[in-house]
């Protein structure tokens, strides 16, 4: 595996305030990496250092083998950035904006193909400022992609979106994987990181507090699952087989069991219910919510 982003002991101080307090990161080629944390945790500061917009106080940083503080035009040809806040180019349509940006690069992607990639075909001749928030963000992604970069930074790409616009944006970001791009995504939405990322690092108070895949983050893979269902009124939870009764964690109209081996226990429950001729229409099995893990990890942060 080849490291595309490599960070060791990165620090950034503003006066007495340490926004980034010594972090290490490795992002491999072709990976979608999510950098997750609450507002003010140091995400954007870190990304702006990686993008070459901010000087660091201390530490080693390498992006595509280059120190971003010394990134030249050749390096910028290989990196794309969707900034946290950037408006559309005033007075230019989607296609014209992409024509403008494609002229900046030596080997840009095809304009129409890039418009299709972000799903803006029907808006190609619409002025940028007239697009909806979600469409503008997709134009941002298209502008970052037009130079055909190896690595693309996405700084909070869906903040302030309605659910359907988020789904569409996720679909576009997911599509970047198919192009073989390495994606460095920052977000404060747990579900976004879970949906999109191969690997997640959680930052709080300028420090990395956890790192892992969506399945293993914060030891989530070792946490017990919960099984919940509602019994018919005439059946009491004390009628459950003893080994399931032992797992009982709560009962407030719905029965809640906690289990380290959910599949075996659900099987047992199903067998028991069928033998009694009961259906359990609202049965659900769920691992601890990643949101809960995240809140636990970043607790104490505002």
């Amino acid at each position, binding site marked *: 595996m080849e490291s595309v982003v490599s960070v060791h002991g990165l620090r950034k101080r503003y006066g007495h305030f340490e926004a980034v307090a010594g972090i290490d990161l490795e992002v491999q080629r072709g990976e979608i990496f999510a950098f997750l944390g609450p507002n003010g945790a140091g995400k954007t500061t870190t990304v702006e250092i990686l993008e070459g917009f901010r000087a660091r106080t201390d530490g080693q940083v390498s992006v595509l083998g280059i120190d971003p503080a010394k990134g030249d035009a050749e390096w910028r040809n290989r990196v794309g950035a969707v900034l946290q806040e950037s408006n559309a180019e005033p007075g230019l349509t989607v296609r014209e904006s992409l024509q403008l940006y494609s002229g900046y690069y*030596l080997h840009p992607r095809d304009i129409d193909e890039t418009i299709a990639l972000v799903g803006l075909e029907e808006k190609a001749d619409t*002025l940028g400022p007239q697009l909806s928030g979600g469409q503008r963000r997709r134009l941002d992604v298209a502008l*970052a992609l037009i130079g055909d970069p190896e690595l693309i930074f996405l700084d909070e790409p869906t903040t302030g979106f309605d659910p359907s616009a988020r789904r569409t944006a996720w679909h576009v970001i997911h599509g970047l994987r198919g192009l073989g791009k390495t994606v460095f995504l920052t977000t404060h939405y747990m579900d976004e990181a879970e949906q999109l990322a191969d690997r997640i690092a959680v930052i709080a108070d300028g420090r990395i507090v956890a790192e892992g895949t969506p399945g293993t983050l914060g030891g989530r893979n070792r946490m017990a699952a919960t099984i919940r269902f509602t019994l018919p009124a005439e059946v009491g939870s004390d009628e459950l087989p003893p080994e399931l009764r032992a797992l009982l964690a709560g009962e407030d109209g719905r029965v809640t069991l906690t289990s380290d081996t959910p599949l075996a226990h659900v099987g047992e429950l199903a067998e028991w219910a069928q033998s009694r001729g009961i259906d359990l229409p609202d049965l659900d099995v769920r691992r601890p919510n990643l949101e809960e893990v995240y809140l636990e990890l970043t607790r104490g942060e505002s």
Partner: protein
Amino acid sequence: MTAASRGPLALVLHQARFDLLGILRNRQARFFTLVLPLLFLIIFVGVFGNHTVKGTGVKASTFFVPGLSALGVIAASFVNLVISITAQRESGILKRRRATPVPAWVLIAGRTLTAVTISLTVLTVLLAFGRIVYGVNLRLAALPGVALTAVVGSITFCVLGYALSTAIKNEDAAQPMVQAIMLPLYFISGVFIINTNLPSWLRHVASVFPVEHLSDGLHKAYDPAAHGVGIVWSDIGVLALWAGIGVAVALVRFSWLPKAAVA
């Protein structure tokens, strides 16, 4: 072949082409830079009449055309640029452009070339309108003087625009700021009214600032009694000096990132 692969000059033209397109699609910019100077010409001649100006021997319109040409150059180069650059900086557009391989100087040169193009267009419209409607006569020999003064003036006011934008927090503050600076200067610099009758201290104040020198350079080039190519080197010199000051300020203070940026 992209603009970038055809070299820096092609990239400047590429940038200017899209900057120009963006400005022409902006109704406010269109009105204040292209329409207003012409409207002023029609109103001024209507209000004051097209009589011979006392002590000069030229028609009033021959005074108004170069004065309002100076206004057009400043509107296209300074007013429009300060407002658009401040807005683009605060909305992250400048930062996003800087995240691409395009060199900073190309963005500045492209935007300046756009302003020069608009300035020369306004100047040409005023010249043609003045000639056809009011019989304002520009000596053919003075054309190089008019063009050179307008181009140097436009570049100077672009540079000063970049310098001033560093002192403005956001787009809303840009419009009042530029007008507060420019309106008094227009009145004492011979843009709207003849300044030879002003008290000498006011003339001295005016002569420090670049507006008076752009206006004076254009007026002298238009003077039907003058001879030669219409270049007033002292005016060009003061404009260039101001451009130098603008470059120095911009080099130290100009930032591509929003002022309202978060840590």
